[in-house]
Every structure is written in structure tokens, then in C-alpha cells.
């Protein structure tokens, strides 16, 4: 007996609890198997690259806050080091150390969200996520302490930082990094050998090494596929060359490997922060720079290892106070290139977990 079947098209998003913002995709299904997937972007497009052309170099820092709003500190960092490279601005050593501390705290906060939401997508509803939120909250408290903001920090400046660390910051940070490894171990014990989690993540959403490179993916997704590529090691910026840390990689390239890479990276970040606090030099946090910077005409590209992957800025200057062109190498958008390939042939129940394992923030995808 034969059945006549026809493909069914399902719309997912843009308003959906597991689309991490306003992401939409059209899935064509044959039974439970995805035959075709088409991601749709643009619901959060604010034209930032155009807007940046009418703001000064310093004013643009606030735009970077609003790209990846789960990791504003690292966006700040990427932008300011690019402008410093373009204009040849020196940064005091203390400011570089503080930038490293902030970026690594941000990486931990962002990975906590990545892991938490991925578990949420998987059906471990809310409980793990709430614990992740609890830890992230402590990091946000630290950020609030230094700049008064909890999401859009606008903390880094061209040539330094907006504020020095307040007195109570270092003891509070010390307390956090003393407790954090224990919490990470605790989560890991709860989750890493959990049979349901293993069944939902092992050998699902496999991205091969070659395909990862061919698709230009970066960050934990690239490393999960076994490529040891981390800008902090490959092209050290700020003072990253002074710290010892590992670059964890996966072997299979499945969802589990991407999960593992993020968990391991949180441990490495804690270790970097510990080293940075120990060596934190005294001194200035800002070089005296002109308020309205007018870099020489030319173009430059600066990049950092953001929580989601290589985050870079390409700036073209025509010797005026505003950039002639600003382009963002947005890891969230480029990492999504691979989504269609991962979804085709997968089961509908895994679609959201695969999407969650890529870890995107729509603010940066659409800009």
C-alpha cells in the first residue's frame, strides 16, 4: 500500500520563545524530516553601518553596544582597537588589562546565556537557564559598578576607558572568580552526563571541519568542529599574549562539542581573569586624545575574539571626524550561513537545538 504525501511548509518565528530574538525561518517538512530551510532576517535591521557614517568616531561606540546586546563589552573592545589602529592611538597598560578583564567577564556571561538557552530549546525548561541567569547577574553587577549600566555599557573609549575601577570592584571580582569554577563544575556534573542531554546533542547537527572553514564560521562553532583558531592566540590584541590559556576544541563537530567548547572556555576565561587581576598595573586609564579624532585617510581592519566568534570592524577614513565607511564582520550573521546545511535532513524537533547551538544574537545579525 502506498501513501501519497506532500511537503508541508511550517513558519517558525519571528515572535517565538526559542528564536533568540526576532529570527524567522521557513521549514519544508517531509513528515518529521526537514527538506528545505530558509532563514529570514531583517526584523531588527537599524541601518547601523549607514548611521555610523554620520556620527563621530567616539559617538559610534554607543552603536556597538546595541549590536550584540548580550556581549556589548566585547563589541566596544573590537571597535575601539580598530579606531586606535586606524589613528595610531596608544593605550595605557592598565586600561588594556581592564579591557581584558571586562571582555573575559563578558565572554562568560555570553556563554552562560548560550548554554542556558540551548538547554531551554532542548526542553530542559527554565531550571538550568535560571541558574545561568543567577551567575550572569553577578557579572552584570560588576559591570554596573564600573560604568553604571547593565546592558549597554559604552565603557571603552578610544585610547582607554571611561572610568577607572572603583575600590570595591577588585574584591567583588575576586569573590566571583573564586566561586565561579565551582558553579561551572556543578552545572557540568548536572548536565554533561545527563542521558537526555547526550541523546539530544551527540551526533546531531554535525558540522565537519572542512565545511566549517568553507562556510567562514568562527568562534565556538569553528572550534567545536576541531579547528584550533582563536584570535586571542592567532593574532593577540590588548595584552592577551601575556596570559597562558588553552583553546578548547571539539572532535566531532556536533551540538555536544559546541556545548563543551563553551563550557571549557568559561573555565579558561576565569583563569585569564585571575592572571590579569594578579598582574593589574597601576597608572592612567586614558591617554589624552583629541575629542574629535580625524584619522589620516586610509582603511584598516581590526578584530577580536568575541564570545560568538571573530568580531571585526573595517573602517575607511577620509580624514574627517566621521568614518567614510564602517563595516562590521558580524560573527552572528556569518555563522548563520551554515544553518541551512545543518537543518536539511535533520528532524524538526532538533531544529531549534541546532539553531541554539550556533548561538546568535539578532541585534548583531541585522545591525
Amino acid at each position: 500500500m502506498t501513501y501519497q504525501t506532500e511537503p508541508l511548509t511550517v513558519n517558525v518565528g519571528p515572535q517565538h520563545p526559542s528564536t533568540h530574538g526576532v529570527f524567522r525561518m521557513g521549514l519544508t517538512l517531509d513528515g518529521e524530516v526537514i527538506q528545505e530551510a530558509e532563514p529570514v532576517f531583517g526584523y531588527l535591521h537599524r541601518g547601523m553601518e549607514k548611521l555610523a557614517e554620520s556620527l563621530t568616531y567616539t559617538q559610534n561606540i554607543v552603536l556597538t553596544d546595541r549590536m550584540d546586546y548580550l556581549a556589548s563589552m566585547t563589541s566596544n573592545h573590537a571597535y575601539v582597537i580598530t579606531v586606535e589602529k586606524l589613528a595610531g592611538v596608544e593605550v595605557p597598560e592598565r586600561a588594556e588589562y581592564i579591557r581584558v578583564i571586562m571582555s573575559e567577564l563578558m565572554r562568560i556571561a555570553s556563554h552562560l546565556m548560550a548554554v542556558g538557552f540551548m538547554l531551554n530549546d532542548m526542553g530542559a525548561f527554565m531550571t538550568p537557564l535560571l541558574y545561568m541567569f543567577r551567575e550572569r547577574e553577578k557579572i552584570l553587577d560588576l559591570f554596573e559598578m564600573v560604568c553604571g549600566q547593565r546592558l549597554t555599557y559604552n565603557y571603552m573609549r578610544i585610547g582607554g576607558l571611561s572610568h577607572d575601577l572603583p575600590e570595591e570592584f577588585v574584591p567583588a571580582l575576586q569573590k566571583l572568580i573564586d566561586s565561579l569554577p565551582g558553579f561551572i563544575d556543578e552545572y557540568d556534573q548536572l548536565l554533561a552526563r545527563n542521558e537526555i542531554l547526550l541523546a539530544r546533542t551527540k551526533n546531531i547537527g554535525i558540522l565537519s571541519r572542512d565545511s566549517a572553514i568553507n562556510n567562514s564560521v568562527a568562534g565556538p562553532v569553528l572550534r567545536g568542529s576541531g579547528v584550533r583558531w582563536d584570535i586571542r592566540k592567532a593574532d593577540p590584541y590588548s595584552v592577551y599574549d601575556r596570559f597562558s590559556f588553552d583553546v578548547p576544541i571539539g572532535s566531532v563537530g556536533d551540538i555536544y562539542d559546541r556545548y563543551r567548547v563553551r563550557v571549557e572556555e568559561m573555565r579558561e576565561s576565569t583563569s585569564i581573569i585571575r592572571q590579569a587581576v594578579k598582574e593589574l598595573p597601576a597608572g592612567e586609564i586614558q591617554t589624552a586624545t583629541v575629542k574629535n579624532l580625524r584619522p589620516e585617510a586610509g582603511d584598516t581592519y581590526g578584530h577580536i575574539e568575541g564570545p560568538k566568534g571573530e568580531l571585526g570592524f573595517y573602517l575607511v577614513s577620509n580624514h574627517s571626524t566621521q568614518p567614510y565607511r564602517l563595516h562590521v564582520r558580524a560573527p552572528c550573521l556569518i555563522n548563520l550561513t551554515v544553518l541551512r546545511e545543518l537543518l536539511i535532513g535533520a528532524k524538526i524537533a532538533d531544529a531549534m537545538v541546532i539553531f541554539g547551538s550556533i548561538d546568535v544574537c539578532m541585534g548583531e545579525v541585522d545591525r
Partner: protein
Amino acid sequence: MTKPASTKEIADSLEHKCPGAVVELSDKDIVVKTKSLLAVVAYLKNTPGLDFDYLNWMTAVDYTDHFLVTYNLTSLKNNISLVLKTRCDNRENPTVPSLVELWKGANLQEREIYDLMGIRFENHPNLKRIFLWEDFEGHPLRKDFIS
């Protein structure tokens, strides 16, 4: 450190492989003919010793009388990066060959450039607007776009 590639050496070897492809050369970048782009990029990607296996990012800049499409190629193996540019003089219908066949990573980035800058990518599998809606008029990142 990611070293910038020696543009001089690469331009010399390109002169043998694709004569006349290099239009302009500086310490930082190489500008190649749009016609030769695919051949140049395939050569850079597949030649042992160069191994530019990773298309890091691409974008386009409007210089009012021409566009420059900029590619940043990286060799993950040798930790070397190269900035490659190609010039588009036709404002009415700027066209550049698509790199999707070589790097799938170009897919969404080319769509983004098409959407915001209005440059067409020949042989792109799915060239349509990515952020703006289909009947949106104009391409906002062009300098003559009035918002």
C-alpha cells in the same frame, strides 16, 4: 600574530598565473580586475604554500565614482591574511562574480552587499535582499541614497 601577506610576492606569482589580473598594488592590498577575480581567488585558495582557505569577510565601499568590493582572505594554516579588492565602475549595473562556489561563507555576505550597496553577484544561488523588503527602493549604503 596574523601576518599580512607579502602583496609584492603574490602579485608576482599572479602575473605568471593570470597575466594582467593585477591592476593596483600597495603594501596593504591588491586590486584585481573583476574579470580575473574568480581565477585569482581560486589560485590563492588552492595553491600549496599560499593556502588561503578561509574567506574571513567581504564588503563593498562606495567611492561615488566607483565601488570597491573588498575581500579579506585568511590562511588558517599559515596564519596569513590578504586584502583583495576589485573595482566596479558601472554605477547603473555593477556586477561582480559570486564566490559562493568556492566559499559558501560568501552566500549571506554577498546578499548583504547586494541589498545595501546594490552590487549584483553573478551566479549567486539565491541573490535577493537580506535585511530590507523586496520592493524597497534604492540601496542605503550608497553615498547618493537620501534617507
